[in-house]
């Protein structure tokens, strides 16, 4: 009697794009009913691997077996038929359609002869309801997907995967757009699926999550498999070491905690009805202040309000010595304030512009040669060259390359560099390391540390408590639009901060 074949096994997988080989001879095994974690820096080949499994990319060499049978999907639909469900990082649902319509878009139950094309609405609804219940969603199947939160959309995607009774479910960074509550719910669901013997592959930058969820963990680096091993064989340090190929001494810069007195930001009673209320804050020169809270607590809104991007009704904002009335981004920039927004794609990148333009866009005035606004290319090029060294942009990045072709980490470095070149006295950073790899994270922490050491004040918003604990000199917690607690000195008590941010 032979052992049953694994849910999925990959052998000698090679993949190249043109001359660039992105996967070298990768072997992976996903045992039946287990969860395999896949980690690696951006560009290590994780997404390529998932895209191969999801039927989006063909392989150049190697074999894949799904439940012991040869698996070579010709496209996403073929992969789905074979039993591989792909939960995308950027959710793949039609926002304008209902949950039920999303479920059955390509396979509606029919009434009467198929060729009449009459949809059996009742059947569609009932079957959708059944699977929604399995993921713990009580929504009506007719709810339009656009009205759901990110977490709920994710659950809908998973329910959809269940409805086609997938043999393997692939998760690509499922928690990036989820609140803490939603992520917790997702983990509960994953545990339940594990109990039912569902095989899954889970990709994430969050090593703690991977260590918590997965039975097996495989590390990729530069397209090579470093090692696959059982969870017990790994810890966070070992994973990071395997991912970057060297030991990272410390992710965070060391802080010099000399006494400071000069206040660069003073916020008093800042209010924007419905978003935040009576916010008091101060940041001193050379200080890094963290602002923790759940998604929706109003943290980003406070930063945007301070910077004059969104309207506020009452309250005062002082930058340095001076009160700033009628705040606009322009006025705040003139006073030496910079804002890194939360969502690169939405309000950070000029996607089809060059790296140079994206670097220079916040500082065009400095490159202008005269009052007509004639841009000195020489000045701009000099600044760009200096910056790309300062933020350690990958050497393969060209200055005239469209920024959307860069990895997330490199994009983020460019956008931070855009502000650093202005040498701001106050940096407002909203989720500065979201969705970027460990190496880039470390570099960005270092840049923040350097900026503070040079005398700037920094106010950082993050959903990752570890990040704030490692980086900040002082932390404030927000809940439901109010600042509810302040932790003035290290060491910080993780549990206490979490409690303040969560409990009502």
């Amino acid at each position, binding site marked *: 009697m032979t052992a049953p074949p694994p849910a999925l096994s990959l052998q000698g997988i090679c993949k190249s*794009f*043109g001359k*660039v080989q992105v996967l070298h001879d990768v072997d992976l095994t996903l045992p039946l009913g287990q969860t395999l974690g896949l980690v690696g820096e951006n560009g290590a080949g994780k997404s390529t691997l998932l895209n191969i499994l999801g039927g989006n990319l063909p392989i150049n060499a190697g074999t894949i077996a799904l439940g012991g049978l040869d698996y070579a999907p010709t496209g996403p639909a073929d992969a789905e038929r074979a039993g591989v469900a792909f939960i995308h990082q950027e959710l793949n649902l039609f926002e304008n359609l209902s949950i039920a319509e999303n479920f059955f878009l390509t396979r509606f139950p029919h009434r009467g002869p198929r060729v009449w094309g009459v949809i059996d609405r009742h059947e569609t609804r009932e079957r959708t309801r059944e699977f929604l219940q399995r993921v713990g969603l009580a929504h009506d199947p007719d709810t339009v997907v656009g009205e759901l939160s990110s977490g709920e959309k994710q659950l809908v995607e998973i329910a959809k995967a269940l409805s086609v009774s997938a043999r393997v479910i692939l998760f690509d960074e499922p928690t990036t757009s989820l609140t803490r509550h939603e992520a917790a719910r997702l983990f509960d669901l994953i545990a339940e699926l594990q109990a039912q013997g569902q095989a899954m592959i889970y990709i994430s930058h969050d090593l703690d999550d991977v260590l918590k969820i997965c039975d097996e963990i495989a590390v990729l680096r530069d397209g090579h498999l470093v090692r696959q091993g059982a969870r017990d064989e790994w810890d966070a340090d070992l994973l990071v070491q395997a991912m970057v190929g060297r030991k990272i001494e410390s992710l965070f810069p060391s802080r010099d905690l000399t006494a400071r007195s000069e206040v660069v930001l003073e916020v008093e009673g800042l209010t924007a009805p419905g978003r935040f209320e009576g916010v008091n804050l101060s940041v001193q020169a050379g200080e890094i202040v963290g602002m923790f809270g759940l998604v929706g607590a109003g943290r980003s809104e406070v930063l945007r309000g301070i*910077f004059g*991007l969104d309207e506020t009704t009452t309250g005062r904002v002082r930058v340095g010595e001076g009160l700033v009335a009628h705040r*606009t*981004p*322009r006025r705040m*920039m003139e006073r030496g304030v910079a*804002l890194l*927004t939360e969502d690169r794609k*939405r*309000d*950070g*990148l*000029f*996607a*089809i*512009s060059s790296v140079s*333009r994206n670097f*220079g*866009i*916040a500082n*065009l*005035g400095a490159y*202008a040669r005269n009052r*007509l*606004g*004639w*841009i000195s*290319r020489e000045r701009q090029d000099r600044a760009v060259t200096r910056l790309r060294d300062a933020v350690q942009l990958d050497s393969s990045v*060209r200055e005239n*390359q*469209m920024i959307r*072709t860069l990895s997330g980490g490199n994009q983020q470095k460019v956008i931070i560099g*855009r502000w650093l070149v202005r040498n701001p006295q106050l940096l407002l950073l909203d989720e500065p390391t979201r969705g970027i790899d460990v190496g880039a994270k470390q570099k960005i922490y270092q840049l923040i540390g350097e900026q503070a050491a040079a005398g700037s004040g920094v106010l950082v918003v993050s959903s990752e408590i570890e990040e704030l604990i490692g980086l900040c000199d002082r932390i404030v917690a927000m809940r439901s639009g109010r600042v509810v607690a302040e932790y003035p000195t290290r060491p910080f008590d993780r549990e206490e901060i979490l409690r303040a941010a969560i409990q009502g």
Partner: protein
Amino acid sequence: MVRASLSRALLSDYFILGLAGVYLLGMAPAVPGLLSPLNLANLAEIALPLMVLAMGQTLVLMTGGIDLSTTSNVALCSVIGGMIMSGADEVLAGSALAMPVGVLAMLATGALVGLINGLSVARGGIPAFMVTLIGMLLLSGLAVRLTRSLPISDLPDAFVAISGTAGVALAVVLPVLVVGHLVLSRTVAGAWLQSVGQNAAAARVVGIPVERTVMLAYVACGVCSALAAILLTARLESASPVLGQRMLLDIVAASIIGGTSLFGGRGTIRGAAFGAILVCVVTNSLDLVGLTFAVVMLSKGAVILAAAALDAFRSRLLAKAEGSA
């Protein structure tokens, strides 16, 4: 190697100009008189106003908007100028001031129309398509009402001379195009314009005055309409409330063929000017063959469609070239 240089040629700004040249030479044997000095001068005369209009349209398209009212603006500017300058019992009949005042009034009218468009889009938040579609109706109506739908003739000689020889018109248009190109590609204002059309939210974050930039694009487009009205009116030697009526597709096509994105953020004045040349070369050759108007329309539509398809292909090629880098 061959493929690489082929795709480089395809992606070049000068590709469209080359295409126009190849078309002209290729059609020459089949179309008698196509390359005659008379026709080439004629070609320049019809191309120059279109280049100016395509430049204005490109500026607006860059912001992610569109100006459908531009041809009606041309007609209104023409009529206003005619009413001021005409020797036939109009306001400044026979005065030496007639021409300068008339030209200034035309430019002011164009700018004012642009300002109203821009205000409605940027401040009023009304979609550009709606604003300028309505503008098209209103301005045309106004132009016809002002003239009771009759052309105004008897314009000052000095004014008519603007289009008397291609040289004068070229001396007016070329600097405008060069300045437009430099402003868009080399100045802060140009960088703002490119950024606003790509991502207005991000532009706001980095302190770009988004509304003002969008408004200025419409004003510039209005001024371009007025300039084209001056050229066209002078060429016709009379002001007409239906001037430029059939040019709208040509204008947008010139701009798109020249590489401007309908979604904003991408485009060059040079490309638009070359696009205008291609459109004019095609139109002119079809006219010369002596086809009926209906067949000319059909053929022109087909050629512009082919050019647009080619542009889509170029965009994909560009994305691919970038992606593999």
